């Protein structure tokens, strides 16, 4: 007699995962996962709480809820968190009680990558950090490594560097105008801003050959000299860039709704800004006159004239106005650079693979988001022993927990956009 054995049903992998997770959680002494607690609206306030004891005092403060408070998780997948930022917002109604930025969703270990790369290839790794200021990302390591090698870039190379860097600053600040408006629900300015940025990107791709991650700077110079296409595009761009910026300004600056939502919003005092390490336009909008280009002139900025503009109020509107003022200063700088650019080579003589002498070098540049600096230590080997980058948007995000309490949910995005963080730079 043959018995027909019924085949075992194939278990659903999701069920297996659940069982495994439950087993591991029980073994680790953790509570069961949220998905297993079903039923009525009980537990509504639990979602978002980490199911482990708080690790730090700050974590305990944020994740302990009083009566009538709830946690709202914004991001990392959220329409307006500028990439993959995650904010855990503690709310009382719609009023923010506390805010906890959770970082690291775009971490690529760039510092470590750079420490395993030769000095020349480091330039390719720093590109995707702050992807709206790629030229600035390359500028600081180039300067630091030149100090290590003890060489200097030719004069013409320095002028080209300053030119591309200022071009990129115009594009980045222009985008900030658009994103700030987009985070308040204005649809159009972002597209006008991208038209401006696209022209700059075309310009930079004409000189470097790439559209976003330019890989243009070299130790001791730049990759290419300016060419005809670049210069002709630059002329066209220069003839209407101010008009384009103004077109965007007409939509935003005097708009009553925009002013109502930005003036007096997210006020960062100069003292707090310095204490938190905020730099760049965000610091100058709080009334502190600090610009790396003025305070510690590098490259050719000593020879160029430009004003150090500051705003007084330190609110979102001031940070917006500061960007527009800096766009105009950058265009003024570009005019001077084009007028004074000398002839000559664009690359100093550098031997193939060089091992710099053991030592340390620090270089700081003014990126569109603030003080971007690089600290490189050489132990005499072909790769940097330590390579550390200070990214300004990472530092500016520190101000969020200080500024946000008392504001409404709607203001989270406006205040965050006013600091203009780029998550590629924050998470490195």
């Amino acid at each position, binding site marked *: 007699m043959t018995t027909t054995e019924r085949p075992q049903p194939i278990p659903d992998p999701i069920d297996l995962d659940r069982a495994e997770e439950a087993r591991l959680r029980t073994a680790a002494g953790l509570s069961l996962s949220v998905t297993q607690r079903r039923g009525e609206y009980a537990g509504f306030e639990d979602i978002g709480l980490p199911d482990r004891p708080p690790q730090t005092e700050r974590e305990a403060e944020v994740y302990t809820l009083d009566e009538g408070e709830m946690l709202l998780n914004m991001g990392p997948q959220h329409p307006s968190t500028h990439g993959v930022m995650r904010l855990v917002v503690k709310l009382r109604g719609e009023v923010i009680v506390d805010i906890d930025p959770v970082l690291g969703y775009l971490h690529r270990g760039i510092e470590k990558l750079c420490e395993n790369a030769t000095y020349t290839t480091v330039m390719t790794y720093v590109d995707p950090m702050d992807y709206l200021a790629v030229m600035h990302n390359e500028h600081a390591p180039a300067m630091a490594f030149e100090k290590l090698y003890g060489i200097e870039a030719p004069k013409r190379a320095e002028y080209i560097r300053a030119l591309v860097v200022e071009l990129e600053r115009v594009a980045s600040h222009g985008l900030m105008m658009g994103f700030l408006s987009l*985070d308040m629900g204005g649809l*159009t300015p972002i597209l006008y801003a991208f038209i401006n940025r696209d022209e700059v990107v075309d310009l930079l791709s004409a000189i470097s050959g790439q559209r976003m991650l330019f890989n243009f700077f070299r130790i001791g110079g730049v990759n290419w000299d300016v060419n005809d296409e670049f210069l002709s595009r630059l002329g066209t761009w220069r003839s209407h860039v101010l008009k384009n910026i103004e077109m965007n300004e007409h939509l935003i600056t005097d708009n009553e709704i925009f002013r109502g939502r930005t003036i007096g919003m997210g006020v960062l005092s100069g003292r707090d800004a310095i204490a938190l390490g905020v730099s760049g336009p965000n610091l100058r909008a709080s009334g502190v006159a600090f610009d790396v280009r003025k305070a510690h002139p590098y490259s050719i900025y000593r020879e160029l004239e430009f004003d150090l503009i500051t705003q007084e109020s330190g609110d979102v509107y001031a940070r917006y106005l500061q960007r527009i003022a800096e766009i105009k200063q950058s265009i003024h700088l570009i005019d001077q650079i084009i007028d004074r650019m000398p002839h000559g080579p664009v690359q100093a003589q550098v031997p193939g693979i060089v091992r710099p002498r053991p030592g340390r070098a620090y270089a700081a540049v003014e990126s569109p988001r603030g003080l971007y600096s690089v600290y490189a230590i050489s132990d005499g080997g072909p790769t940097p022993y330590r390579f550390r980058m200070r990214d300004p948007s990472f530092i500016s995000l520190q101000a969020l927990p200080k500024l946000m309490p008392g504001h409404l949910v709607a203001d989270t995005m406006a205040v965050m956009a006013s600091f203009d963080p780029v998550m590629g730079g924050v998470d490195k």
Partner: protein
Amino acid sequence: MDTELLLGIGRFLLATTLLLLLTVPTAFVIIQMELKVIARMNLRLGPNRVGPGGLFQSTIHGFKVLAKEDTIPDQADNTTFTLAPWMVYMAAAMSMIVMPFAPGAIAADFSIGIVYFFAVIGLSVVGLLVAGWASYNKYSLLGGLRSAAQMVSYEIPLTLSVVGAVVLAGTLSFSELIGWQREHGWLFIWQPVGLVIFYIASLAEINRTPFDMIEADSELVAGPFTEYSGMRFGFFFFAEYVALFIMSGILISLFFGGWLAPWPFPAQLDGFAGTLWGILWFFLKTYIFVFVAVWLRATLPRVRVDQLMGMAWKVMLPIALVNLFITAIVVVVFDL
């Protein structure tokens, strides 16, 4: 039953069917308009692949929504979750019953049509609140509560702004109101303040920019609609655009003479010709205001929720009351 009643029921059923059918092309046309007009204002081309010049893009969107999987979150309240889109859509569709398209082309010419309209259009807030609560999502919850606060507040200035016109014309029926405008001139000349308040409040009532904080994509992802997908989301979407059409239609009926041509030609077109002529002008004027709403969406950022409520209670309500007061005095003194 007598034949008159049966005929009445038959006429009503026919009219409501036609109106329900009308909502579909209306939504498609307005979505297409929004896609293309905003694109042009953004210096983009907009959709241009489906049909000549991208004409069928919104239709394709509609079919896409139909074909998509309809998901319900694990912990959502099933019954209310599935009912909510229906509530919102029916509020919009039901209010169309009193829409005065043309002489003889009103589904039901109530003597209290204006009261009926404001009563029914306000029902959509129930659907939104239910959607927000049933979704078991914090964004939905915030959006739903915002919708309750916003729509209930704005209903007051919205209704009060019309009372002035009603006092002037002495009627609550749309067709009689339009008849009054034929004799005395369009009501926006008599009630400019009422018009402004009505327009702002109507934008808030149907959640259009700059008052779209119920969806507020940059803050609340999609507000009460966050957890909806497939055709359930499609119904919310449809209802929103149909509501825009309805509000524009009611606006022109109240303040811009409804089906009346802007000049007194032809003085009297009777019968079917008059109906067609009226429908032409009705749709023309309505779509002008639909266009203005789309234009505003491309231009303005969003108002914050506390500013919105402050404006309703501190600015618009007092102005509407003063407007009503002055209108009433004028009517009594000059015996209009």
